[in-house]
């Protein structure tokens, strides 16, 4: 669900249009009114609601025990015990291992999705071969297939292949996705002129060389956004790791849930775990926010 396919041609036009919003504004009357105080107030309220639950986790995670939750008013001001609680998270659970597992799974699938999706996207966008259209239709249709429904045979299959409990159980089925192929095909068609491919061919470059030296550099931005979304999706996934890995060798999300399980839940500990699990992703994505937003905005169709 995280990586949504983006098929609307309108999105492509949106991206082109955005390249010159100022010039567009200078020409003639503005197409929509500017925002008044009411609009800003609404936006501020919505933004506050978007960020509040995270802020609140951080607040609770920085207090020394559950008693902070038992007051007559909810806690809204941070205490001074965040570092201490984070240390306890690492002492009381295999959180380092879980972080490592998540990092390996998420980065491997991100890299392989980018490479394999752009390779297939290149073939679909720029090469002509018998059956191309039929195969492309297959890709589009599979975007809509809820693979979650085959989860029991998938578990059996992975077990039969000897991958149960190993990180490969998470990586191999996610090496490449229909959404990725479709995304990259759009981007390559949009961004790489046929003449460029032709020129590379004239110069005697084989298809692989053309892919690596012409196609990949030409769609770097879309590839980055696809990689980041794949990373985020793998990092945040819960259902499949819950099934394919034993709890003692899980991913961050599994470890997080274990912090919360048990008869007595230590909320400061649990929410410190939430902070640890969210912070790395949030930090990376805040730095790259502008690029991601334009990626989602354009359906990542264009770099």
């Amino acid at each position, binding site marked *: *669900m995280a990586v*949504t396919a983006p098929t*609307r041609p*309108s999105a492509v036009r949106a991206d082109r249009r*955005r390249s010159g919003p100022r010039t567009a504004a200078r020409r003639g009357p503005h*197409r*929509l*009114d*500017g925002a008044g105080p009411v609009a800003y107030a609404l936006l501020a309220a919505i*933004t506050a609601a978007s*960020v509040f*639950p*995270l802020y*609140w986790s951080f607040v609770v995670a920085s207090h020394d025990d559950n008693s902070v939750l*038992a007051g007559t008013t*909810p806690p809204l001001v941070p205490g001074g015990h965040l570092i201490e609680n984070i240390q306890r998270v690492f002492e009381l659970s295999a959180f380092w291992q879980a972080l490592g597992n998540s990092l390996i799974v998420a980065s491997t699938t991100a890299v392989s999705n980018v490479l*394999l999706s752009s*390779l*297939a996207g290149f073939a679909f966008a720029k*090469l002509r*071969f018998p059956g*191309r259209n039929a195969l492309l239709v297959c890709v589009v249709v599979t975007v809509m297939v809820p*693979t*979650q*429904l*085959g*989860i*029991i*045979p998938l*578990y*059996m*299959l992975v077990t039969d292949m000897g991958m149960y409990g190993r990180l490969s159980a998470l990586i*191999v*089925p996610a090496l490449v996705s*229909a959404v990725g*192929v479709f995304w990259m095909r759009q981007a390559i068609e949009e961004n790489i002129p*046929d*003449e460029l*491919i*032709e020129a590379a061919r004239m110069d005697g470059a*084989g*298809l692989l060389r053309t*892919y690596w030296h012409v196609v990949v550099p030409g769609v770097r931005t879309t590839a980055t956004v696809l990689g980041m979304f794949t990373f985020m999706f793998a990092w*945040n996934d*819960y*259902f499949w790791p819950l099934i394919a890995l034993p709890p003692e060798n899980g991913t961050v999300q599994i470890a*997080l849930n274990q912090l*919360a*399980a048990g008869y007595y*839940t230590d*909320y400061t500990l649990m929410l410190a775990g*939430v902070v640890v*699990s969210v912070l790395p992703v*949030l930090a990376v*994505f805040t730095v790259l*926010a*502008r690029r991601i*937003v334009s990626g*989602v*905005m354009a359906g990542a169709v264009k770099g």
Partner: protein
Amino acid sequence: MAVQAHPTPGRTRPGRPPRRPRPERHLLPYLFVAPFFVVFGVFGLYPLLQTFWVSLHDWDRLAGQGAWVGFDNFTRLLEDSDFYTATFNTLSIFVLSTVPQLLAALGLAWLLDRRLRARSAWRALILVPQYVSVVAVALVFSQLFGRDFGIVNWVLENLGVIGAPVDWTADTWSSHLAISFMVMWRWTGYNALIFLAAMQAVPRDLYESAQIDGASRFLTFRKVTLPAIRPTIVFTVVISTIGGLQLFAEPFLFDQQGNAEGGAEHQFQTLTLMLYKYGFINNDAGYASAVSWVLFLVIAVVAAVNFLLARRSERR
């Protein structure tokens, strides 16, 4: 049928002598697309079809294939009152989360479509919930919706909306509302950005002529913006349907029991929770596979209905 990079799709260039295809070009395009088809075939399509085979058997997840039972698992399902509860819960939570979510996203996109100060910052901030894992969301919101010390009860009591603290997990409607809220929180901003992208592609002159005709802001939105972005709305509705009907982590983590029962009376057990319970706790893979197929059917029907409704309103 020479396989070659094509300079102009769909057109042949008569002036150029036919190029003799290099032999590896026949194979290479297929090799390029092969990884996707292999991975999808083995780990996507095969399990989906195998599910049907499993559903026709007595099948223990650990012991493996048992006797052929035909459609017994399906008839058992149709006699199982839990199944109807779960179907109702799935549809109820889906409607409660998707309808307000898409409406809110439309409104939010409409706000963001104006000339704004710090435009990129607003856009980035509404996307923040999307980076947060569903586990973190479920854990945090379970606290916010706590009976005794939850902020939601505290606010509602202070506003005078409720007289006594609500035990959000205890009842059908309260638990559905709380779970829908988690889903909404995570996805509204994302959908808003998708809508915003479509809105920005609406031709400017349409707005200008509406302005000249003296149409109000709301009328312009209804008569110009909405029809223009309808394909995008249909797209998000279909995608939200597929996701919304498969909810697992939110209801699974809502009560911290980890037993996939969805509360004492299954008041928030969704079909995917039921699938997990029978498949991975009771190890009754045959029965769980029957649940899978029915869920698949529900998704297909709801998605088709949504699609047709959206198409019909388009023609009006």
